[in-house]
């Protein structure tokens, strides 16, 4: 979508500049001629004096989707201003999005394809410029020969979250290339424990658990639990602030007095990673004191469904009758009216609780099992474990039981610990028992993704010659496979890797593993980026890629009910190319002409992706996106998207108090039987490292979290010249008590270390941290530290069921340098 062409007044900016520059120069040059020289070297002919405006959408991984007007003068993007959405409070912007041109035109932008100078070490910073022809020929030669010698799986495709465009982004065109090559794609592990835990209750998969951002206007209470929207998702916070102004109470549960806690009505400090225990103790107290929402439990939860003691499975219709595949297979309940079992929905008086004998099999209701499971979680023990006083816990109980509609803003704070999914699962159970799900103002918020519009990924990914990528193991295991060239006892060569929209070296935990185990195994490491981040620095070759505004795309927005178009505002700078072009070049050079014919353009792929039933239903076409800029996908016009408004996306359509068939998020050959029986019912598990009883806690007294700040989105904007004027260097923040014990003062240089790595960095004393907690805004790159880097400190292991990164489950100690 492009709009108003504004004609500028008679004199152009540049010619005006020249005129005033000359005057100022003459007036002030007594000592030199610099300004006159600058004048002489300046722009030459007057421009055509036109500012064109077109529209786009920011696509970094901040979980928001601000739409921007791109102001272009003389082919250059000179300004980005927030652009409208039909719902005005969704119009947003931030310091990163607005200053994106400082990344486009940054003096640090990667301009040409470059190859590491032969004979120099990876990371030594010796590069030689090469032509695109040479680069593509070399990439094709490496990939082809490695694939022939070791098999296509020896090439690893690493996808990151640097661009949420549907075609040029994380789930876009490079998946088509990986699919025809048959490359390896390690299972992603970012931010997936929250959804995995909540899914146990409401069946929303990994990323679809949240209500639309504006739904909080209907909340009587917002509990911000382990997230910090004031810094990390200000576009969501804007709605919460509005709600607060209407009388909604905001309560923050967080180990750190976050920026959001400072804005809230109530702040509840909690010992890091003990949130799950708190939720379960509250749930038990609620049940013991009969404070639960009986109506919700009876109508919308699996409370009455019977569980067989012999198998742990629900008692299903198929236990007694043939059920054809695809046919519904409802569970049985106990009908008090008849004293016998009945299929769910067919009982007159279904028993919510009880234990029964059915044909020699003992069965319990799901509710009974949950109650028994929760019985051990007490408020007094919660006080000891969580550090939250009993009376505060009871006040929070009041919120959940007496509040008209409670929403929990959750995101990925708790997610980043080994016990993240149990914490989130526990909170979901608390929400179910108190009926705070599936209605206006009630449920989770954090990352609302639109489920209504399914795009045709298959058409985009599965090109002629498609063999598919292999996801055999998760990202955390790549270093083991690379080091041993084996997986599960069999040969699994890893010889090449390409990082696509990804800064893996910076954003995967345990950085030293990447540098010392993955890199040495690779014969060839290709990076594609705009800036020299950690990943590019350690690569063998880098390709310059187009920025958000240098190509066309569209995205299904996060946290808004729209699909939004990105116009190509300017041509790619220097020799940068967009993903569609790069992919086509590599594909054809490798002999995949059928998948990537030269005639295929962005339009070809966009039309493939938009050829789905849902797109037809919503009438989503590229033409319309180009014309209208964005299209509303609201299911109920005017009403916020609410998860589970009519039913939940579980097998039964009900909120599950008992998980019949729990499964690990990723199967990679781990022992899934051992824990299977334990995974039916929610439980608390201490975190691996942060919990006070851990072995690490005995040696490393301080918890370290890499907080999400306003300055960067993960590592993007790490080198923005404009933002670095405000936030020039890495700062490690520690509590006054911890600092005092170590003789450290604000401004001191400290070494933060554990047995995995270290960083040397400036320190600031921060009283929003209790003793034993420390933090640092994430995103800084290794060369910006005095020594080391924060990602050296994190551990590379994962919970075998959640299979997620645990960045915050990290302990350190600190000493003054």
């Amino acid at each position: 979508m492009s709009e108003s062409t504004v004609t500028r007044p008679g004199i152009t900016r540049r010619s005006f500049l020249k005129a005033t520059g000359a005057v100022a120069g003459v007036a002030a040059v007594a000592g030199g001629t610099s300004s006159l020289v600058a004048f002489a070297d300046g722009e030459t002919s007057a421009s055509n004096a036109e500012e064109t405006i077109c529209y786009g959408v920011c696509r970094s991984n901040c979980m928001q989707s601000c739409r921007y007007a791109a102001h272009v003068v003389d082919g250059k993007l000179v300004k980005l201003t927030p652009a409208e959405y039909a719902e005005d409070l969704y119009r947003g912007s931030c310091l990163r999005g607005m200053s994106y041109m400082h990344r486009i035109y940054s003096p640090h932008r990667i301009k040409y394809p470059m190859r590491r100078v032969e004979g120099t070490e990876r990371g030594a910073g010796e590069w030689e410029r090469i032509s695109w022809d040479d680069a593509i020929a070399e990439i094709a030669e490496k990939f082809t020969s490695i694939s022939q010698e070791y098999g296509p799986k020896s090439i690893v495709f690493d996808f990151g979250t640097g661009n949420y465009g549907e075609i040029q982004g994380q789930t876009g065109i490079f998946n088509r290339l990986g699919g025809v090559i048959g490359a390896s794609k390690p299972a992603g592990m970012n931010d997936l424990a929250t959804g995995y835990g909540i899914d146990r209750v409401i069946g929303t998969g990994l990323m679809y658990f949240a209500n639309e951002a504006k739904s909080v206007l209907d909340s009587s209470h917002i509990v911000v639990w382990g997230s910090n929207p004031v810094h990390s998702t200000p576009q969501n916070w804007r709605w919460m602030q509005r709600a607060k102004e209407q009388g909604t109470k905001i309560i923050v549960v967080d180990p750190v007095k976050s920026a959001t806690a400072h804005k809230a009505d109530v702040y509840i400090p909690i010992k890091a990673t003990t949130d799950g225990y708190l939720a379960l103790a509250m749930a038990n107290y609620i049940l013991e004191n009969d404070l639960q929402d009986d109506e919700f439990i009876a109508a919308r939860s699996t409370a009455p469904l019977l569980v067989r003691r012999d198998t742990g499975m629900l008692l299903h219709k198929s236990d007694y009758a043939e059920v054809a595949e695809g046919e519904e297979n409802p569970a049985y309940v106990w009908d008090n009216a008849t004293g016998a079992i009945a299929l769910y929905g067919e009982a007159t008086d279904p028993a919510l609780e009880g234990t029964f004998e059915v044909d020699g099999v003992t069965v319990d209701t799901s509710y009974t099992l949950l109650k028994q499971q929760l019985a051990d979680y007490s408020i007094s023990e919660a006080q000891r474990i969580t550090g939250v006083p009993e009376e505060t816990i009871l006040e929070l109980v009041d919120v959940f039981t007496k509040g008209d509609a409670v929403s929990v803003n959750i995101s990925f704070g708790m997610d980043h610990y080994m016990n993240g999914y149990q914490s989130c699962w526990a909170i979901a159970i608390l929400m179910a028992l108190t009926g705070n799900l599936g209605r206006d103002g009630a449920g989770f918020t954090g990352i609302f993704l639109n489920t209504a519009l399914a795009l045709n990924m298959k058409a985009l990914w599965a090109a002629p010659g498609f063999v598919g990528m292999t996801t055999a193991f998760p990202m955390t295991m790549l270093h083991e496979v690379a080091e041993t060239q084996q997986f599960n006892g069999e040969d699994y060569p890893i010889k090449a890797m390409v990082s696509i929209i990804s800064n893996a070296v910076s954003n995967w935990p345990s950085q030293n593993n990447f540098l010392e185990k993955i890199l040495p195994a690779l014969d060839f490491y290709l990076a594609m980026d705009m800036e020299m981040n950690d990943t590019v620095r350690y690569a063998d070759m880098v390709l310059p890629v187009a920025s958000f505004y240098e190509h066309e795309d569209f995205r299904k927005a996060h946290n808004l009910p729209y699909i939004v178009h990105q116009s190509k505002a300017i041509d790619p700078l220097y020799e940068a190319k967009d993903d569609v072009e790069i992919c086509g070049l590599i594909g054809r050079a490798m002999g995949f002409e059928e998948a990537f014919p030269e005639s295929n353009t962005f339009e070809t792929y966009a039309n493939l992706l938009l050829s789905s039933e849902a797109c037809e239903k919503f009438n989503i076409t590229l033409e319309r996106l180009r014309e209208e800029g964005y299209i509303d996908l609201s299911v109920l016009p005017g009403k916020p998207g609410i998860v589970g408004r009519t039913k939940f996306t579980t097998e039964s359509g009900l909120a599950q108090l008992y998980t019949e068939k729990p499964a690990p998020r990723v199967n990679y050959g781990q022992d899934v039987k051992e824990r299977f029986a334990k995974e039916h019912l929610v439980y608390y598990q201490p975190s691996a490292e942060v919990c006070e009883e851990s072995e690490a806690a005995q040696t490393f007294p301080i918890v370290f979290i890499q907080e999400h700040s306003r300055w960067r989105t993960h590592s993007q904007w790490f080198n923005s010249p404009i933002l670095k004027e405000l936030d020039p260097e890495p700062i490690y923040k520690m509590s006054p008590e911890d600092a005092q014990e170590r003789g450290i003062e604000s401004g001191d240089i400290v070494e933060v270390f554990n047995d995995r790595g270290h960083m040397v960095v400036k320190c600031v004393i921060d009283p929003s941290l209790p003793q034993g907690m420390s933090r640092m805004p994430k995103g800084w790159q290794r060369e910006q530290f005095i020594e080391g880097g924060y990602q050296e400190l994190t551990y590379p292991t994962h919970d075998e069921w959640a299979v997620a990164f645990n960045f915050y489950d990290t302990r350190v100690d600190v000493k003054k340098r």
Partner: protein
Amino acid sequence: MNYGFVIDQERCIGCHTCAVACKIENNLPDVVWWNRILTDGGAEMDIPAGEFPNTTIEYVPVNCQHCENPACTKVCPVGATYKDEETGIVHQDADKCIGCRMCMSACPYTGVRSFNWDEPTHVLDMNIGGVDAPEHQKHTVEKCTMCSHRVAKGEEPACVEACPARARFWGDLDDPNSEVSQIIKKRSFKQLLADEGTKPSVYYVG
């Protein structure tokens, strides 16, 4: 007419978006910020005062206060800084400014003005921001213009348009029906250094 700002500190999240919008719109030289976000709390940016968990923090965005009774205009020997009768905007005319910096000493709001000791430099090798944004000259004092180039076209200042928290309001304080007048009529407000008698046109509520 007397244009002014209302800043809602309850809504302000200290995100610096207004500062960045200002810097871009006005093509500000390196290291120059007309609009800065001060932390009212501890000694460093974003660090609160007090002891855990009873800490407090507030943000104070500060730009030229476009005072009704400005201290700066009285001391300028060449009339480079003056209050525009029509709009109430306090201007700083770079072409007239002789760089004596009297205005900087007279203004009680330290830091809203900056002086270009050298030829202004820009990290990007191009001009950005509004096509009609002001120039930046060596040996002159500069400050917030209230985006007068935008105001002249009927637009609001860039900082107001950009604010993601919707914490900044702008309008005619002389018009009792304007949004800004309505807010300060209904809510208690403070002005920075009210004792100085400068009658600033920036009102802080919240």
